[in-house]
């Protein structure tokens, strides 16, 4: 019986103007998305490959263990996600590399060791072009699809009531929940059809170009992203049904829905960002950061001055200096991340923000992905340092004093033994990160549907 109603709804919608307009709009957006992505992705991949090759060439050209230990691995690059067309995730504002070879000072024959430094510059400073939201699946689903969902459902109950057909339907021995479920499914299917069509064409254009190879894991990710988008559409359909049931006239229902939509989708995310970032503790400013860095160095060099330049104290100085610098950078970064996490938690009130974060997680872009990249970098830094110590230990002629040239192994290091940085995406980890968001979204959809059901049961015709 549900199918009966759903089918009727679907047929009704297929012939309507809104269906045609929605299809055209979604198709145009998805095609734009695909063409822009193809153009930009090639450049991105090319840039990543040359940077990584450069990094590896420089690293393997060094054979002296001291040089390797002092200069560090150099710039480490973030692997661009092939699914960036799904969610841009503010990647333009996130740094695509970490400097694992930062800060050289020289003091006679003594040289400062490398440490991890996280670039804090805003890369957008020289760009005078107008700001723009990238058209990704996140935008298409978050803004356009949700608006379409509302436009499909705002009159589904109230319209029937106005026309008097609701009375007719309820006169049949069909339980009310069946009617509601049928309406829900019908609306979902009517949106599902143009959206799926647009998505398929988008994917076809992308994979037919031959420039992008999407592996099995990527297709799984795409499936999840698609399902999330459908779930999110379900949220707005349920909302539309709820408003349509509760209010008498379609016009009133539409006004309520549109204003709710504008508030929750367009404004709440941005407004809450400003509010939440004002309330969360501000991270240390970059001036403060540099001051603390200099203070630390002054203190350490003062101590070194007193202890004299014996090899052991030299080694101590160099290692402590690198460690201290890295600890400070890490602290700075942790504070910044904490603030962003707080802001992201606050914006989750809006389903649009929620779905944005979900898409980002599964597309392997955005903030969560950046955190993963930083973790990979940290792991690699540990590995690299261990490699230096182990290589030194393996040489019986070395005095094993890391940090000074004469205290370290003189044997040439073979390029094969140097650990190589591999940045990779992992679906499992992304899933773990997104699980709570996913549950939250499902819960919200369920609650709304129950609400709509309760409202519909009590509706008087």
């Amino acid at each position, binding site marked *: 019986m549900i199918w009966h109603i759903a089918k009727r709804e679907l047929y009704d919608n297929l012939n309507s103007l809104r269906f045609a307009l929605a299809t055209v709009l979604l198709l145009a957006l998805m095609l734009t998305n695909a063409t822009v992505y193809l153009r930009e992705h090639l450049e991105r991949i090319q840039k990543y490959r040359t940077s990584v090759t450069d990094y590896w060439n420089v690293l393997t050209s060094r054979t002296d263990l001291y040089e390797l230990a002092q200069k560090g691995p150099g710039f480490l690059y973030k692997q661009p996600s092939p699914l960036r067309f799904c969610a841009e995730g503010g990647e333009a504002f996130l740094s695509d590399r970490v400097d694992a070879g930062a800060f050289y000072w020289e003091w006679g024959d003594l040289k400062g060791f490398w440490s991890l430094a996280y670039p804090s510059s*805003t890369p957008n400073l020289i760009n005078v072009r107008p700001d723009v939201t990238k058209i990704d699946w996140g935008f298409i689903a978050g803004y356009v699809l949700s608006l379409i969902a509302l436009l499909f459902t705002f009159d589904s109950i109230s319209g029937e009531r106005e026309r008097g057909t609701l009375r007719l339907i309820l006169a049949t021995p069909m339980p009310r929940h069946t009617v509601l479920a049928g309406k829900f499914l019908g609306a979902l299917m009517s949106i599902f059809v143009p959206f799926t069509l647009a998505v398929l064409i988008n994917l076809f254009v992308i994979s037919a170009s031959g420039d992008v190879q999407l592996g099995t894991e990527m297709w799984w990710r795409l499936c999840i992203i698609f399902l999330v988008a459908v779930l999110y559409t379900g949220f707005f359909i349920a909302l539309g049904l709820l408003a349509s049931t509760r209010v008498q006239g379609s016009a009133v229902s539409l006004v309520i829905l549109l204003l709710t939509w504008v*508030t929750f989708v367009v404004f709440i995310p941005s407004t809450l960002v400003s509010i939440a970032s004002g309330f969360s503790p501000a991270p240390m400013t970059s001036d403060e950061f540099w001051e603390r860095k200099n203070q630390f160095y002054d203190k350490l060099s003062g101590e070194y001055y007193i202890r004299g330049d014996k090899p052991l104290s030299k080694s101590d100085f160099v290692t402590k200096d690198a460690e201290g610098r890295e600890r400070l950078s890490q602290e700075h970064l942790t504070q910044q991340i904490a603030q962003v996490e707080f802001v992201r938690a606050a914006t989750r009130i809006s389903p649009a923000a929620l779905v944005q974060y979900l898409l980002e997680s599964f597309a392997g872009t955005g903030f969560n992905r950046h955190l993963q990249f930083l973790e990979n970098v940290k792991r690699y830094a540990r590995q690299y340092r261990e490699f230096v110590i182990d290589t030194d230990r393996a040489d019986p002629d070395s005095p094993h004093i890391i940090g000074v040239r004469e205290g370290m192994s003189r044997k040439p290091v073979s390029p094969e033994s140097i650990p190589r940085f591999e940045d990779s995406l992992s679906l499992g980890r992304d899933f773990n990160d997104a699980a709570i968001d996913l549950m939250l979204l499902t819960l919200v959809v369920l609650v709304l549907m129950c609400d709509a059901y309760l409202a519909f049961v009590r509706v008087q015709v």
Partner: protein
Amino acid sequence: MLITLIRRELLDNLMTFRFAAATLITLLLVVANTAVLIKDFDRRLASYNTAVKTHRQQLRETKTYSAGKIVVDRPPNPLSIFNVGVDKRLGNQIEVSYAFVPTLWDAEMSGSDNPFLNIFNSIDIVFIFEVVLSLMALIFAYDALAGERERGTLRLVLTHPLSRGHILIAKYIGAMLCLLIPLMLSLLLSLILLTTTSSFSLGTSDFLRIGGLVISSLAYLSVFYLIGLLISAATQRTGTALMLSMFVWGFLVLVYPNMILAMTHSSEHLKPRAESALNQMKQMWDEFDRERKHFLANDPVSGEAIYFNVEWTTGADCYDSEYSAEDASTFLYYYQVEMQMESFEKESEPNVSYVQDYFRFLCPRTINMAEQTWLVRKPALEDRFIQPATVDRLLLKLSPTGLYDAATQAWAGTDLPGVQDFFDAARQYRQTVIDYFIDNKAFEVRQWFTADKKPVDWRTLPQFSFQRVDVGANAKRALPDVCLLLITNLALFMAIFLIFQKSEV
């Protein structure tokens, strides 16, 4: 009769639910966001004030001319609350050095504690109007004609001895008066909030600018109302009119701006003209470098060190650093020496005059080189950065939302020319600084690099001050866009009139 009609329209609209809901939402959004934006502005102003203070302090503590780092800061624009434009995004501090001509692309950003927060987009009051008021105007308009036709009241109205034009005008005035209420109320509330905040000192000219904002907002609102009316006149049923209006709205406000900018491609590769500019600058740079090295090679002191074996005694603040920057992406080439010696060995005294000779030779050439490269650099920068941005902005203006955005940015002074004004001022100030240096013979005296006799007294240096351009200039920048908005209004009204004239009831 016209008055009666207008009154009927007004009452009809005022008593509706949509009016109440839309007014409430606009008020809520505007007030909440104004509060947030004021807080944000306070933060920016505070960080600007600290930056100015630190930079002055740092300059005063410098003891030689060459080491003096004169940094000027761009104050945040108070009207950025209404439309933030590029005010917040572009660099807000710039070094004014004799060695290069400062531009927007050499500026740095101070005061942003957390660069990660950039991943979230920020909003301003104009954006709220852009989205909510246009939606509201369409909701008011979609059934204005189609609804009456459906209900049959249109037939009734037309039986009166009234021209159809009058009916249209009555509808337009009635609805616009209605739409004015949320616009004016919310603006008034945000202005009250602004004026009660101590950090805002809005002058008469600022209120004139806000007046300009209001006029642009009205024109924008009217465009969307007329679009709705056009759809309503052209369609037979309200349902169709509604769907069309909503999709037109979604397209014009949400989709078009983002889609059109995604289509325009910004290539990372330099155009041949930029390439040739870069080569030209490189040649000048090489020539300069050759001359410099030639001078160093022919001097009586061996070696290429620029301190000519002057042995300074260790102590606080003894350093020399020379740096040359080559940044191909922003076409920047410059060479600068900073020296600050507190005292030096007695034996070095004869060599000091060599150092003086060197700088007497070098500094005017550095300035000359800066001026010459600037002549090449300026068009190159325009080519590389301004031109694509202008094309983008032009394309955006094909949608009324883009026009409105551009007009309000121009009124608020947060558009690109508004920010460029600051850098023009910085360039003028650089000339003042150079004149000051020349007047004080700074390049020739010992104080250029050493403070052994007497440190530099920076208090006599003229202060930098930046005033936003006057309202007239803002109006001149905004006028084309406002006019375009008005012309769109007229065209739409004509179209509606024609359609409505010919339509059958």
